[in-house]
């Protein structure tokens, strides 16, 4: 048995090596760079202490990006849970084409976020299909990505629609794990549909809630591809998330040190939100 465990440990080595090279090392290197004035491409730079972090605290564009990040994360997650649970409840019923419906709703998850972003871009651009519909209905062309509200709203909507399938699958699995006898017993006791949902379905789905919210929240907070495909973070700095602002600061403004500092802010934010989430959603599995 001991020999088997040692052989198994050896098989972890490639994964550990890759993890060290592509996650651990860049993480500590990023911390180091955040204390420099490196421009991202020169072989020369200097250490500048905490000046990047002082600047970060006062930078209005970082505040805008941080707010947008919260909208992309929490806003998307909120609507994904409502829609995802609704789809799961509907598609958990027995009807002829439910497998087809499940596949159609889940398919966008498999598409690259960049491709999804570009597909939607050609729909919502000024001369795109959406404005053609608006004009056909008697309205005038709109710049759907031309202001902060419309740009952030459009990006959030597209993110919700693309990844709602993830929530649906998680909730479907949760629903199918609820023993039918609880519903039968509740029906016998005279409980209505809403009472059965509130007192049986919701408590039993608690682990699924935690998983779905955690997965979607982290994905939303890290949103990058769709933003780059739709707006590039603009107009101006209006639709940047912290992730895209890091990209813009590094490559556009040539301030790699400052970009690394923003990266640390993103890391700490996601860590804090994830830990808070775990504390709020303490495991309360319902045992019958």
């Amino acid at each position: 048995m001991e020999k088997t465990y040692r052989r198994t440990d050896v098989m972890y080595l490639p994964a550990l090596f890759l993890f060290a090279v592509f996650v651990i090392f860049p993480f500590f290197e990023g911390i180091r760079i955040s204390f420099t004035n490196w421009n991202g491409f020169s072989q020369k730079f200097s250490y500048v202490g905490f000046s990047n972090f002082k600047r970060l605290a006062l930078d209005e564009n970082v505040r805008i990006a941080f707010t947008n990040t919260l909208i992309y994360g929490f806003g998307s997650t909120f609507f994904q849970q409502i829609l995802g649970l609704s789809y799961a409840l509907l598609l958990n019923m027995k009807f002829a084409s439910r497998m087809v419906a499940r596949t159609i709703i889940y398919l966008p998850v498999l598409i690259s976020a960049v491709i999804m972003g570009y597909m939607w871009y050609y729909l919502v651009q000024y001369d795109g299909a959406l404005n053609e519909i608006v004009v056909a209905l008697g309205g005038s062309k709109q710049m759907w990505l031309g202001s902060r509200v419309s740009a952030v709203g459009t990006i959030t909507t597209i993110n919700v629609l693309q990844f709602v399938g993830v929530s649906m699958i998680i909730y479907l699995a949760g629903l199918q794990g609820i023993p039918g006898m609880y519903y039968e017993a509740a029906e016998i006791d005279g409980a209505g549909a809403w009472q059965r949902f509130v007192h049986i379905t919701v408590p039993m789905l608690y682990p699924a809630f935690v998983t779905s919210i955690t997965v979607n929240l982290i994905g939303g907070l890290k949103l990058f591809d769709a933003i780059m495909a739709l707006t590039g973070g603009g107009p101006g700095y209006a639709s940047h998330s912290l992730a895209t602002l890091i990209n813009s600061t590094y490559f556009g403004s040539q301030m790699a040190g400052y970009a690394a500092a923003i990266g640390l802010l993103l890391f700490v934010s996601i860590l804090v939100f994830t830990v808070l989430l775990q504390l709020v959603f303490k495991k309360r599995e319902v045992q019958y």
Partner: protein
Amino acid sequence: MKRMAFLVAAGFLSAALVFASGSSEGTAPAKKGPVSITVAINPPPTEGSFKVMEEIAKAYNDSHPGVTVQVVNYARYEDTMKTKMAANDLPDLFATHGWSVMRYSEYLTPLNDQSWFSKINPTIKPVITDKNGKVFVLPFDMDVAGVAFNADVLKAAGVDYKTIKTWDDFKAACAKVKAIGKIPVHIGGNPKDDWTVGNFYDWTAPSYLITNDKANFRSQLKDGTFDWNNWAPVAKMLVDFRDAGYLNPDYTQGTWEDVGKKLGAGDVAFALYGNYVIGEAKRFNPAGHFGFMPVPAASKDDTPTLITGERITLGVWKDSPVKAEALKFLEFCAQPENVNKMATINGNPTGLVGPGYSSDLGDLAPYFKYVEGVRGFGYFDREYLPSGMWDSMCKTGTGLLSNTMTLDQAIAKMRNDYNSLRGK
């Protein structure tokens, strides 16, 4: 035995994962054989200048068996080049798009000893020479840029470009163009193409800040004492154009392709770009009539000017494993037929002068004649701003256009980035 097999399998897997992810780009061939040279340039493959570079490479390959020159373009050229510089792993030759001295010189080999060095056009030479007198690129052509226009639209609107000397004259012309239902100026404006807005600033800022010999901020911009409140008239001009209806109606979503397409189609009168925009317009309408005029002055006590600078330039990576061969290819590029071909496709004068060097300026010849003697100034952001502020110009410009930034916020951003990039 089984334990040994496991160890071997784990070791092989680790090695395979490490070496399979590598790229041999830029490494020297292990033994003598065909030489491969990579040339990276910034114009996309759809542009004429890329196609010309491919033709030059093909001609070289045909006449030099054993050497293969490959021309490539990166989708995000500047970002990719910055990553490659950080890794010190660059193409053998690459275009520097205006930044041969300020950004790329650390990685380029000086070319003062090349046979074509003495033929460099005196107009472009100061722009590509560093403070130690070193030149790092071969200039195929040079930007002699003003405000491009569709001559047919101006004629229909009753505008004579020769009467436009100041921005007030320009606005009056825009009003006439607008009156006939055409778009006076196509600015692009899409945040994903925000360089189109940065370009507007590169064209307009000099007239307010540097061209007037009697009142300018040339030294303040260079020594770091510039008061950024003086940026306000430049930024406000963009907003004024928008509010007057002189810009394309989709001014926050218009793309670079739209500029050429609509200029070519006769929907737009003016475009504030180099003459390469005329090349783009002609792709959509080869029979159209296009021209360019000097950039107007901000006031009557100044004169219109031109914008000069690098256009298509090639340098050699100083650590290229095939540097000798790369220099030979560069020598081939410097031949009159190749320089002329590139300059002609861009509608620009040649970057080298002397017997045999001349570009066919075609329909633009009368306009080049008209601007003879007009003062030229280098690209504003390249000469007067630290590297990295081009992005600030682009972003604050789109921010103002979309009302997601106020004038004060735009000025503050420019000031903060200027100070930060200067190390303050």
